[in-house]
């Protein structure tokens, strides 16, 4: 195909991408842009040229070893719900714009750490981008049959122009916004589109090769199985291969989280957490589809071309060999899509890091202070543009100098191992609040040095000297330091070996120094916020200790410079409203400092934001002693509060007791009053009767008929008796209630007492036709006051008499032995006790309305006195509630 035609196709294709991004940006709230499928497809930026071309190479050369790189992400996917969700929330809270921001913020917004992470990401991504350029340029040559492959002049190399085009495209494509934490919906939509394209084209070529050029999968398998060394390609080689696989899976597991482009799409560009739910099964499915035909294309290529041609481009070479240029173009475009999306997202992420964590905090910051908003954001944009352009161009030269000899797969793995150095700081730091910035820095540097020694140095030396003496004889000729076999571990592949040593020592350093070195207050604060992210979401603005002096005016000036007048004012207004502060507040507090830092973080990264704000804030270093003092004070407060609380509890207890006593007294007093009232009333009633009758008798002595005279005289007699009884009862009752009565406790036979009571009452009962039954004829010796027991039984029996029907009435007394007491019952067959009366019958002066006589006989004190006597014997008395007919009173006398 013609050079220019292909170039033209590429330009057309890039314009299409621009158009898609433009459309998506325009309709950024539509369902087409915000859905879990777009999110999942954007994650597929993982499948770059390495997957598209490199896997086939590995499958052809060393069998199924291409698989572990996809198994790691598949294993990671279910964990996203836990891990990625936490990372997303933290990132959203703190307006994080890159993985460098994320890690440096976790360790107290450490500027150096941010720069170090950026450096690691740069080192890890440059070869990766060069890998993409290599793929593009080589496939470009294959498509055009160009031989400039060997040209020494850069300007004469057509692939240089491809790289240049890519750089220019990426530069303008990804820098339309200043706030790096804002979403790039256009870019994400175009990445999703490319993910569809590369998968579809890859499947098309897979089907074409497997079912058109060959006769299906079985045919390919049958043919290849006749070749020599087939077995090695389809099986694992014992424990060593197993370990290699293990490390490769771990490596790709880390990569899916840590690669700057993956962090960009999975965390920063995520719209809704719930999109994750779909992604955790859809993304593994995508990877599966991508890998279905790899092995068959590889075998088909091997069958067709033998061993003498670049195995990585079988998918392109096969259709070309068969004259199908159209299909080859599709494959080229698919690969180009994989490249473009990887390069765009990677450079986007890297440029943010380079500008926010490297350039602005380490040099350009002073420039911003004097300038205006517009110029500032222009500066930031330009820094990013230059970064992107430079990164791609450096990658190109990297490719020219190093990558030509290496396979796509080998370059990709170097990237992975470098990026993996962030893993201990990143993962452990999420769940362990002791992890400190110094430890993180030491761990990453140690890890990187080991990777440099075991992986980067050997291939650099090889690329320059063409000799392999370094790898074969080791540093200074020491066996033990052979870069691919450190300490004689010689069974791992170079990347797995480098990964093993670097990540182990990195982790050990991180853990050891975290425990050994003290971290400062700021670090502990952020560590707490990350580890306990959920509990800090509401109070993050106040969640740090800060001491110093700052004026709102100064902070506002800084904000205006970066956000513009309108945005800064609006943000401050919201802040003041949120915390109920006066709009004219002069001095800024810790919350405002933190708030402003966060606002700026989106624009210029957390490290720069911290420095900028620190410039207008006279922050005083808080010494450990002061922190301790603060802690001590709050501890003291807490313990003081505890004592106070206890005291208050005691007081309220005492006062409630007092209140109870008082209430009791009031009740008692009222009862006393009521008692006196009632006594007076009860006494007055018979006196009234006596007085009236007497008066009438005196006045009408002559006129009154004899019958009536008799009646009145009888009334006087009755009332006088009543009066006498009443007085006796009242005196008894008063004695009992005030505790003046002393019982004459002796061993007595209850049977004898019952007989006496029945005897004294038998006449009255016989008159009414009521039968008295002594149910238990046996002796029972108990400890009681004979006279008082006589009174109790008399009261109960005469009470029963009042309610018994005349004729056929029965009153029976029974007793039996309980557990620790004798139980005595008095039962009648009268009307029974009305429900309403149960609560009152033992109250003084309470008289049931259910009596046979119209006017109740007795004083109304009988049962009250009875109760007092029984209780004085330590017994209990009650009326049986479940009595079907009649009334049954029960009382107990304890044996002792």
């Amino acid at each position, binding site marked *: 195909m013609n050079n220019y035609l292909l170039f033209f196709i590429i330009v057309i294709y890039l314009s299409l991408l621009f158009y898609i991004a433009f459309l998506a940006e325009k309709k950024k709230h539509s369902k087409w842009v915000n859905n879990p499928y777009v999110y999942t497809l954007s994650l597929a930026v993982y499948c770059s040229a390495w997957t598209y071309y490199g896997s086939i190479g590995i499958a052809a050369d060393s069998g199924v070893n291409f698989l572990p790189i996809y198994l790691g992400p598949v294993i990671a996917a279910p964990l996203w719900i836990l891990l990625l969700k936490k990372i997303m929330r933290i990132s959203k809270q703190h307006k994080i714009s890159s993985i460098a921001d994320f890690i440096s913020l976790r360790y107290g917004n450490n500027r150096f750490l941010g720069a170090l992470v950026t450096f690691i990401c740069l080192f890890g991504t440059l070869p990766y981008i060069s890998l993409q350029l290599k793929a593009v340029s080589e496939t470009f040559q294959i498509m055009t049959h160009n031989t400039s492959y060997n040209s020494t002049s850069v300007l004469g190399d057509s692939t240089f122009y491809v790289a240049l085009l890519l750089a220019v495209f990426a530069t303008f494509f990804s820098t339309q916004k200043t706030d790096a934490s804002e979403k790039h919906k256009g870019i994400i939509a175009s990445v999703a589109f490319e993910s569809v394209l590369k998968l579809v084209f890859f499947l098309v070529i897979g089907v074409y090769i497997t079912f058109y050029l060959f006769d299906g999968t079985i045919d390919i398998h049958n043919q290849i199985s006749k070749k020599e060394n087939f077995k090695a390609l389809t099986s694992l080689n014992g424990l060593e291969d197993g370990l290699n696989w293990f490390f490769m899976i771990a490596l790709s597991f880390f990569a899916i989280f840590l690669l700057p482009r993956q962090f960009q799409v999975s965390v920063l560009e995520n719209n809704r957490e719930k999109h994750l739910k779909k992604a955790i099964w859809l993304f593994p499915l995508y990877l599966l589809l991508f890998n279905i035909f790899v092995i068959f294309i590889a075998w088909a290529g091997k069958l067709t071309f033998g061993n003498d041609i670049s195995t990585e481009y079988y998918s392109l070479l096969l259709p070309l060999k068969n004259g199908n240029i159209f299909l080859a173009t599709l494959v080229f475009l698919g690969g180009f899509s994989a490249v473009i999306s990887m390069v765009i997202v990677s450079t986007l992420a890297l440029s943010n890091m380079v500008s926010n964590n490297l350039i602005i905090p380490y040099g350009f910051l002073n420039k911003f202070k004097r300038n205006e908003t517009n110029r500032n954001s222009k500066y930031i944009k330009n820094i990013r543009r230059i970064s992107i352009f430079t990164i791609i161009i450096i990658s190109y030269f990297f490719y020219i100098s190093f990558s030509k000899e290496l396979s796509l797969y080998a370059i990709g793995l170097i990237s992975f191992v470098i990026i993996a150095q962030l893993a201990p700081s990143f993962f452990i730091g999420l769940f362990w609040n002791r992890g400190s910035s110094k430890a993180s820095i030491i761990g990453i540097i140690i890890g990187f040095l080991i990777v440099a020694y075991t992986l980067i140095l050997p291939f650099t030396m090889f690329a320059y000297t063409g000799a392999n003496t370094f790898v074969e004889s080791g540093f200074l000729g020491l066996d033990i330091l052979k870069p691919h076999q450190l300490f004689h571990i010689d069974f791992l592949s170079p990347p797995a070996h480098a990964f093993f040593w670097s990540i182990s020592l990195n982790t050990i350093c991180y853990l050891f120094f975290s425990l050994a070195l003290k971290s400062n207050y700021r670090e502990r604060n952020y560590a707490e916020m990350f580890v306990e992210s959920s509990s800090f979401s509401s109070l993050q603005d106040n969640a740090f200790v800060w001491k110093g002096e700052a004026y709102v005016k100064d902070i506002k000036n800084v904000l205006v410079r970066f956000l513009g007048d309108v945005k800064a004012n609006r943000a401050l207004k919201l802040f003041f409203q949120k915390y109920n502060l006066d709009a004219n507040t002069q001095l800024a507090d810790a919350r405002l400092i933190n708030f402003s830092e966060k606002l700026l973080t989106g624009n210029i990264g957390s490290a720069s934001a911290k420095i900028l704000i620190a410039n207008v804030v006279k922050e005083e270093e808080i010494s450990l002693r002061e922190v301790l003092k603060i802690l001590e004070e709050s501890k003291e407060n807490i313990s003081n509060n505890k004592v106070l609380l206890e005291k208050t509890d005691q007081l309220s207890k005492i006062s409630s007791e007092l209140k109870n006593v008082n209430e009791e007294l009031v009740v008692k007093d009222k009862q006393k009053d009521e008692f006196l009232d009632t006594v007076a*009333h009860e006494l007055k009633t018979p006196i*009234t*009767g006596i007085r009236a009758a007497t008066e*009438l008798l005196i*006045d009408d002595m002559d006129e009154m008929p004899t019958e009536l005279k008799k009646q009145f005289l009888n009334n006087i007699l009755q009332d006088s008796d009543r009066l006498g009884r009443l007085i006796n009862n009242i005196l008894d009752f008063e004695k009992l209630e005030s505790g003046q009565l002393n019982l004459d406790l002796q061993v007595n036979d209850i049977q004898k007492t019952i007989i006496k009571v029945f005897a004294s009452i038998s006449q009255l009962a016989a008159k009414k036709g009521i039968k008295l039954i002594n149910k238990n004829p046996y002796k029972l010796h108990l400890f009681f006051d004979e006279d008082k027991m006589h009174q109790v039984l008399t009261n109960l029996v005469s009470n029963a008499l009042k309610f018994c029907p005349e004729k056929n009435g029965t009153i029976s007394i029974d007793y039996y032995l309980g557990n620790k007491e004798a139980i005595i019952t008095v039962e009648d067959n009268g009307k029974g006790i009305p429900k309403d009366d149960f609560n009152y019958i033992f109250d003084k002066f309470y008289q049931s309305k259910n009596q046979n006589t119209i006017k109740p006989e007795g004083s109304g004190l009988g049962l009250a006195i009875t109760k007092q006597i029984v209780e004085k014997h330590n017994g209990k008395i009650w009326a049986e509630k479940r009595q079907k007919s009649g009334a049954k009173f029960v009382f107990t006398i304890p044996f002792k």
Partner: protein
Amino acid sequence: MKKKILIVDDEPNIVMSLEYAFKKQNFEVFIARDGSEVFEILKGEIPDVIILDVMMPNVDGYQTIKKIKETVNLTATKVVFLSAKNKASDIEKGLKLGADKYLTKPFSVKKIVSEILELLN
């Protein structure tokens, strides 16, 4: 026409004396032993005066006078409390409820009779 008097008290001895005294004054006497019996009687009779005890079983004097005052055709009927409760607060309460007089026990029969006669003239 004979004046009609309703005596409401649960003490038969006291009622007996009052009944005797008022019959002698040519009153037609009705007797109720508590508030609930009062309204049985009031269904058929409109007395000129009611003597009302306070402390009675079931429906007491206070409840009874409230009901009486709510009854339309009893507006002309005088109500006199006759109670052993003689505290100032008791008397005040009784008069507030609309009693025309509050007399206390024990009492002189002559005095009661003259008070009632005075009230009716």
